């Protein structure tokens, strides 16, 4: 009997240790967000006199209004607003194009394979992994040649092209699991390429569309490298504008405005994460490779 009691006592201690560690890490992951939020509603006096985790005494939305509407970023005094819309105008077409093309590619590479299609897929797969630094210089020249440098449409093109490897991979791996008998039966009945896609594949594709759209939206919204290399001034996406705001060496640093701007830049992807977390995580493990 005493042995059993000892074991159950050590088990309780184990449970406490496990729960304690898990909660401690939850705190660790939440603290930066918490500090960002409270800092964004403090005025500069409170920031200078208080500590990181001191709650705001006189909460103010002024930093948010300034970050959104009239903070100085680069040469303009119009806050992050315009850059936020730039990102939206960039993300929507880029996600749409890369997802739709990826869906059709994935359909071909899984159900209409031809000689060379596996080679194509393998080559595309390698494209998922290249460090983009290795295409930046030629891309800059090409965008200039196409008259698209420093434009939103240039960024849409770049994100569509380099997103294709991933969207194709997603759809191909999903469609491989759709029974080929269905497709073959439809073919015997005389259904064509697009009819089969429309009638058989699309109706079962909702989950993979969700995963792909969420993955692409997060990736493109959060991109910094392409934004900083291929846009200037008024066409910059929000991530580049945020960096410009945070890293300006001019005058007094307004941490509250920085934090408000950072939260604004993070809101769309956080919203997606909390609303559709299931698909987000699924895309993460499926597309883990991109990083």
């Amino acid at each position: 009997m005493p042995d059993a009691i000892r074991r159950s006592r050590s088990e309780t201690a184990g449970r406490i240790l496990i729960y304690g560690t898990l909660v401690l890490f939850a705190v660790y992951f939440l603290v930066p967000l918490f500090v960002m939020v409270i800092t964004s509603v403090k005025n500069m006096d409170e920031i200078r006199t208080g500590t990181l985790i001191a709650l705001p005494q006189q909460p103010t939305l002024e930093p948010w209004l300034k970050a959104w509407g009239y903070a100085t970023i680069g040469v303009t005094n119009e806050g992050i607003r315009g850059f936020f819309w730039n990102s939206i105008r960039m993300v929507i077409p880029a996600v749409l194009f890369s997802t739709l093309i990826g869906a059709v590619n994935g359909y071909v590479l899984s159900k209409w394979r031809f000689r060379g299609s596996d080679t194509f897929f393998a080559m595309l797969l390698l494209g998922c992994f290249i460090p983009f630094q290795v295409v930046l210089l030629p891309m800059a020249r090409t965008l200039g040649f196409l008259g698209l440098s420093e434009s939103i449409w240039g960024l849409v093109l770049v994100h569509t092209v380099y997103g294709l490897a991933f969207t194709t991979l997603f759809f191909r791996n999903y469609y491989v699991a759709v029974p080929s008998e269905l497709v073959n039966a439809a073919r015997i009945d005389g259904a064509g390429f697009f009819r089969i896609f429309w009638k058989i594949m699309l109706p079962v594709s909702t989950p993979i569309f969700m995963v792909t759209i969420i993955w692409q939206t997060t990736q493109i919204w959060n991109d910094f490298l392409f934004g900083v290399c291929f846009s200037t001034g008024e066409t910059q996406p929000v991530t580049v504008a945020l960096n410009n705001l945070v890293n300006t060496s001019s005058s007094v640093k307004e941490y509250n405005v920085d934090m408000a701007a950072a939260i604004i830049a993070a809101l769309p992807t956080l919203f997606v994460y909390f609303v559709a977390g299931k698909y987000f995580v699924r895309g993460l493990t499926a597309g883990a490779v991109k990083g």
Partner: protein
Amino acid sequence: MPTDARQPGLASLLEAALPKVVVAPSFAAMLVFIYGFILWTLYISMTKSTFLPTYDFVGLAQYIKLWRIERWWVACRNLLVYGGLFIFFCTVLGLMLAIFLDQKIRIEGALRTIYLYPLALSFVVTGTAWKWLLNPGLGIERLVREMGWSSFTFDWLVTSEMSIYCVVIAAVWQSTGFVMAMFLAGLRGIDDAIIKAAQVDGAGLTRIYWKIIIPSLRPVFFSAFIILTHIAIKSFDLVVVLTRGGPGYSSDLPATFMYAYAFTRGRLAMGAASAMMMFAMVMAIIVPYLYSELRRKRDA
């Protein structure tokens, strides 16, 4: 194959060619924008290009010069330090959290949501947050001093020898949840029967984890290692926002080196050479990985 021999008309020929026609634009885009551009960059790296590409061939001269630049060595050394610590901490913490979460925890869903949310953030946002937390004047240093330890110093962000460790801290914060998710998926894939059998044999839980479960997660360790290495080599935004590669160039990584040379200092050929070196690093990791993955799938 969709070829239909019974009705050899133009329409059926077209129908037969349709799959190829549909993927042709993507195929062309891939050839040009991925493979063509890599060759183009390779070519630029073998010229004397400065602000604009010139196409006078100088062979490997830029690469020889590159490896003589002290800043490039700093960037590569930083990548080793940063990559090593980043991979180590993400793996250890991710594995620990996954094992703990797998113990029938009542609030698992909520905890998982919390551990994973940093992944939805841009590295620019993460960098902004940690720049504020690590700032010596008003950040953690000040907090600890106010709490009574008045001689406490934590000024890594502005110290040349330590600034790269700030990048490690922020990067680990952002990516640990992801590794946790990978390990958790791996743990859920393990057959319960194995564990039950070991328990019947009288093995303790700790022993079962060390001897049976963790070794069986080897493929997950492997994938996590590849993915984290890949993230480390491509790290760019976080450094730019957090330290701007500074103080001086003490926290430069190859990616920020490449950007500085190619886009701000007007040394295109040198930038291209450093990009090719990054490409070589990634390929050295990825090609064996893809090869083994494809082989495993074929065997399965």
